[in-house]
C-alpha cells in the first residue's frame, strides 16, 4: 500500500461526500430494447380490435391500421426527443419546453395511461383464459355429456376481474421484493409471440383466401356505426345526427389506444448500446413494423374471418382467440392453436401488468428525484430496499380500478385512451416548442422542415401535433368516462405534485444545508480516486440500511484506514426510465439518505477510523459496484447479505457484471457479510487457483516421469499445467458437452475422495464456475 495519499483526507473535519453524476448502467442491443417495448405495445393487439369495433362498427380495423401507421410518425417524435435528452420521455421534454406546471399535467396524463395499462392487461388476460375455459366446459357438456356442475360456466367479467386482481397482487409482491428486470425475459416472450403471430397471419391469410372472405367496409362516414357510449357527450345533441367527416376523426380517436406503449421507447432508450441513436432508430422501426403487422393486420383478419353474429357478442374481449376458432382446419387443431394464443396472451398481457407497475413506479421515482413528490415516497423498504410506498400507491390504484370496472374491458379501454392521447399530445407540443427554444445538441430531427429566411418551420412535427391534438380534443367530447375519470385523476395528481413540490423545496433546502454543514459535498461527473483523494487498493463497502450497518462494522474492524482507504458507497437506484446523467442541481438528497450518511460517519467515528462517502446513481446495482470498484482501483468490495438472493448468487451476478466491464479492469475480492458477522469471500475476475496438495503431488509425479525422457530435460512443472489446460481448452472447443460431463464426474469423484475434515477453500469458486457453465 502506498504510504502517501495524494492529500490527507483528514485535513477537514467534514467527511468528503462525493456525488457522481453519471449513472452506472448496463447496455442492451436494439433487438432487446425492441422486445421490451413490444411487450407493452404488442399486448394491445389482444384487446384494441374488439374495443374499437364495439365503438365504431365493422370498419374499425381500418382505423386500427391507420393508428398503427400513424404510430410511425409518433415514433419519429420520440426519436427526436431521445436524441436531445437520453431520457427523452414526456416529463423531461415538457418540463424543458413548457415548464413545471405543464410537466406535472403531462406526467399526470402519463400516470393515468400507466396505471390503466395494468388493469386492462390483467382483465384482458383473464378474458382470454376464462373464455377458453367456458368454451371447453361447454364442449364437455354438449359433446361428452358431462354434468353441468362438473363443467360450470363462469361469469366472464367477474372471473376476469378476479384473475386481474390475483396477477396484480402477484406482481405487487414481486416489485416489493425487487425483481431483477431482465431483457432476456422480454426477448423470450417476444420470440414465442412471434411464433404465434407468424402462425396467426399465415393461417389467417390462407383461411381468408380459402373461404373467400371480404375486406371490412371502407372507413368512410356512411360505414361508421357508433354505439351510444361512443358518442359520449354528443349523444343527445343534433350534432350526432350529422357527423360526416367528423365521424372519421371520432373513429380514429376510439382506436388510438392501439398505439399505447410508445412512451416505453423513451424509457428504454438510456439502456440502448452504442451507437445509441442508430440503435434507437433501428429499435423504433422494428417496433413500428411489428405492431403494424400484429395489431393492424390481426384486427383486419378477425373481422374478415369471424362471423358478424359472434364476433362482437362472443369474441369482442378475446378477438384473437375467436380468430383462432374460425381458421379453416380440424376443430382439434383450432382448439390447440387457441390454447397457444391464450398462453401467449397470458405471457404478454401478464408481462404488461408488470410493465405497468414498473413503468409507473419509474415515472413517479423520476418526479420524486426531481423533488415533485414527497420524500416520504422515496423511503426504501426495510428488508428489500425497494420504493415500496410508490409501488403500494400504484398497485392500490390499479386494484381499485379493477374492482370498479368489474372486469369490463370496454370501460377500461375507453378510459385508457385518455392518458395515451394526452401524454402524446403534450410530448408533440413540447417538441414543437423546443425547435425554437432548445439550442443544444440535437442528434436527429423529424423531417419536413421548411426554411423561410432564418426561420425553420417544422411542418412534420406540427403535422403530428395537429393529428394528436385534434384527436385528443374530440376524445374529450366522445369519451365521457375517459374525460371525467381522466380529468379527476389528472387534477388529483397535479395537486399532489404541486403540494409535494412546495413542501420539498423547504425540506431539501434544510437537508442540503445540514449536509453541507456535516459533509464536504462535491459533485463529480465520474467517480475516480482523485475525486475521493484515496490511494489504490481501497475497500468499498456498500451501505443501504442505517439501522443495522453490519457490513460497515465488519469492514471497519478489519481495515487499518491509515494504510488502506475505506469508501462507503450508497447507490441511488434510478428506477426504470431514469436519466443517464443527473446534474448537481438535480441531486436532491432525501432525509433517508442524510440519515444513512450520518450513521456511516458515526459508526466510523466509534471505531476511530476515517471513511469517505460516495453516492453513485445506478441503473443496476451490480454494474454500479464493479464500475465503482474498477474506477477506484479497489482491492475489496464488502456487502451485506442480500435479502433476496444468496451470497453465491450475489457473487455470481457481480462476476457477470465484471465480465461485461471493458478493459483495463482489476480483480478484487468480494466479501459478503452475514448479519451474525460471519462472511464468505469470492475472487472476482481471473485469479490464481488454490491448488490442492494432491494436485501439486500429481504434477510433481508427472514431471518426474516425463523427465526420464532424454528430450524432456528442460521441462518445468508449469509446462505440464500449460499442456493440460491447452488440451482441455481444445477439447472444450470440439465437444463442450463432453468436457462438462467429464468435469462434473471428476468433481464428484474429487469430493468423495476428499471426504470429511478436509478444507474446501475453493468451494465457492466451484459453485460460481458450475453456474457459469450452466448459464
Amino acid at each position, binding site marked *: 500500500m502506498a504510504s502517501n495519499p495524494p492529500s490527507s483526507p483528514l485535513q477537514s473535519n467534514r467527511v468528503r461526500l462525493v456525488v457522481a453524476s453519471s449513472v452506472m448502467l448496463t447496455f442492451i442491443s436494439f433487438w432487446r430494447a425492441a422486445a421490451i417495448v413490444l411487450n407493452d405495445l404488442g399486448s394491445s393487439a389482444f384487446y384494441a380490435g374488439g374495443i374499437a369495433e364495439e365503438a365504431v362498427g365493422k370498419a374499425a380495423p381500418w382505423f386500427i391500421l391507420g393508428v398503427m401507421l400513424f404510430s410511425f410518425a409518433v415514433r419519429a417524435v420520440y426519436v427526436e426527443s431521445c436524441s436531445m435528452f437520453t431520457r427523452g420521455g414526456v416529463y423531461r421534454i415538457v418540463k424543458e419546453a413548457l415548464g413545471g406546471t405543464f410537466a406535472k399535467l403531462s406526467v399526470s396524463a402519463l400516470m393515468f395511461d400507466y396505471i390503466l395499462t395494468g388493469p386492462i392487461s390483467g382483465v384482458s388476460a383473464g378474458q382470454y383464459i376464462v373464455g377458453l375455459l367456458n368454451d371447453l366446459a361447454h364442449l364437455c357438456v354438449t359433446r361428452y355429456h358431462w354434468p353441468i356442475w362438473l363443467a360450470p360456466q363462469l361469469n366472464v367479467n367477474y372471473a376476469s376481474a378476479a384473475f386481474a386482481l390475483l396477477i396484480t397482487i402477484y406482481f405487487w409482491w414481486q416489485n416489493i421484493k425487487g425483481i431483477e428486470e431482465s431483457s432476456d425475459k422480454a426477448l423470450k416472450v417476444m420470440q414465442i409471440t412471434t411464433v404465434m403471430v407468424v402462425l396467426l397471419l399465415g393461417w389467417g391469410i390462407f383461411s381468408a383466401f380459402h373461404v373467400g372472405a371480404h375486406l371490412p367496409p371502407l372507413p368512410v362516414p356512411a360505414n361508421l356505426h357508433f354505439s351510444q357510449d361512443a358518442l359520449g357527450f354528443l349523444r343527445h345533441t343534433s350534432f350526432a345526427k350529422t357527423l360526416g367527416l*367528423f365521424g372519421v376523426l371520432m373513429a380514429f380517436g376510439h382506436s388510438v389506444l392501439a398505439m399505447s406503449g410508445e412512451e416505453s421507447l423513451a424509457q428504454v432508450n438510456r439502456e440502448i448500446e452504442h451507437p445509441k441513436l442508430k440503435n434507437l432508430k433501428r429499435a423504433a422501426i422494428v417496433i413500428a413494423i411489428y405492431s403494424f403487422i400484429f395489431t393492424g393486420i390481426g384486427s383486419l383478419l378477425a373481422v374478415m374471418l369471424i362471423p358478424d353474429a359472434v364476433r362482437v357478442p362472443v369474441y369482442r374481449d378475446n378477438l384473437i382467440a375467436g380468430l383462432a376458432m374460425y381458421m379453416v382446419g380440424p376443430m382439434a387443431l383450432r382448439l390447440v392453436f387457441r390454447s397457444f394464443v391464450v398462453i401467449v396472451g397470458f405471457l404478454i398481457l401478464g408481462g404488461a401488468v408488470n410493465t405497468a407497475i414498473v413503468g409507473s413506479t419509474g415515472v413517479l421515482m423520476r418526479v420524486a428525484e426531481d423533488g415533485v413528490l414527497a420524500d416520504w415516497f422515496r423511503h426504501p423498504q426495510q428488508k428489500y430496499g425497494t420504493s415500496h410506498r410508490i409501488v403500494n400507491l400504484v398497485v392500490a390504484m390499479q386494484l381499485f380500478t379493477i374492482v370498479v370496472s368489474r372486469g369490463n374491458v370496454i370501460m377500461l379501454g375507453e378510459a385508457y385512451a385518455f392518458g395515451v392521447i394526452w401524454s402524446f399530445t403534450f410530448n408533440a407540443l413540447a417538441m414543437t416548442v423546443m425547435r425554437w427554444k432548445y439550442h443544444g445538441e440535437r442528434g436527429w430531427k423529424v423531417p*419536413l422542415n421548411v426554411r423561410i429566411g432564418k426561420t425553420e418551420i417544422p411542418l412534420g412535427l406540427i*403535422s*403530428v401535433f395537429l393529428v394528436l*391534438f*385534434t384527436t385528443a380534443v374530440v376524445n374529450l367530447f366522445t369519451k365521457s368516462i375517459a374525460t371525467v375519470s381522466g380529468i379527476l385523476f389528472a387534477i388529483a395528481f397535479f395537486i399532489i405534485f404541486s403540494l409535494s413540490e412546495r413542501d420539498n423545496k423547504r425540506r431539501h433546502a434544510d437537508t442540503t444545508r445540514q449536509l453541507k454543514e456535516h459533509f464536504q459535498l462535491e459533485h463529480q461527473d465520474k467517480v475516480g480516486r482523485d475525486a475521493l483523494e484515496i490511494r489504490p487498493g481501497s475497500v468499498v463497502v456498500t451501505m443501504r440500511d442505517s439501522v443495522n450497518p453490519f457490513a460497515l462494522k465488519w469492514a471497519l474492524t478489519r481495515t487499518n484506514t491509515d494504510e488502506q482507504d475505506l469508501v462507503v458507497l450508497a447507490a441511488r437506484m434510478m428506477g426504470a426510465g431514469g436519466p443517464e446523467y443527473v446534474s448537481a442541481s438535480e441531486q436532491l438528497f432525501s432525509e433517508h439518505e442524510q440519515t444513512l450518511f450520518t450513521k456511516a460517519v458515526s459508526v466510523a467515528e466509534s471505531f476511530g477510523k476515517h471513511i469517505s462517502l460516495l453516492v453513485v446513481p445506478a441503473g443496476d446495482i451490480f454494474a454500479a459496484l464493479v464500475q465503482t470498484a474498477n474506477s477506484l482501483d479497489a482491492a475489496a468490495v464488502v456487502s451485506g447479505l442480500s435479502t433476496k438472493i444468496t451470497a453465491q448468487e450475489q457473487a455470481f451476478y457481480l462476476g457477470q457484471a465484471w465480465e461485461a466491464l471493458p478493459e483495463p479492469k482489476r480483480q478484487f475480492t468480494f466479501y459478503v457479510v452475514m448479519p451474525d458477522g460471519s462472511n464468505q469471500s469470492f475472487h472476482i475476475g481471473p485469479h490464481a487457483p488454490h491448488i490442492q496438495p494432491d494436485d501439486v503431488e500429481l504434477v510433481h509425479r508427472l514431471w518426474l516421469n516425463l523427465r526420464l525422457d532424454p528430450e524432456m530435460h528442460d521441462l518445468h512443472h508449469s509446462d505440464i499445467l500449460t499442456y493440460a489446460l491447452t488440451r482441455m481448452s481444445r477439447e472444450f472447443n470440439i465437444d463442450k458437452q463432453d468436457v462438462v460431463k467429464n468435469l462434473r464426474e471428476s468433481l464428484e469423484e474429487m469430493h468423495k475422495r476428499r471426504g470429511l475434515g478436509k478444507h474446501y477453500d475453493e468451494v465457492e469458486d466451484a459453485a460460481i464456475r458450475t453456474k457459469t457453465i450452466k448459464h
Partner: protein
Amino acid sequence: MATVGMMLLRALVPLFFIGMAGSLVVIVVTFVEDMKELIEEED
C-alpha cells in the same frame, strides 16, 4: 354557445386531415431512412 362549440368541433376536421397529410410524408421519409439504418452493415 352550443352552436359555436359545435362549429369549433367541425373546424378540427380540416386540421386533422392537414396533419394526417403532413404525417404521411414524415412516415414515408422516416420509414425509408430507418429501413436503411436497419439493414446496413455495422460500421
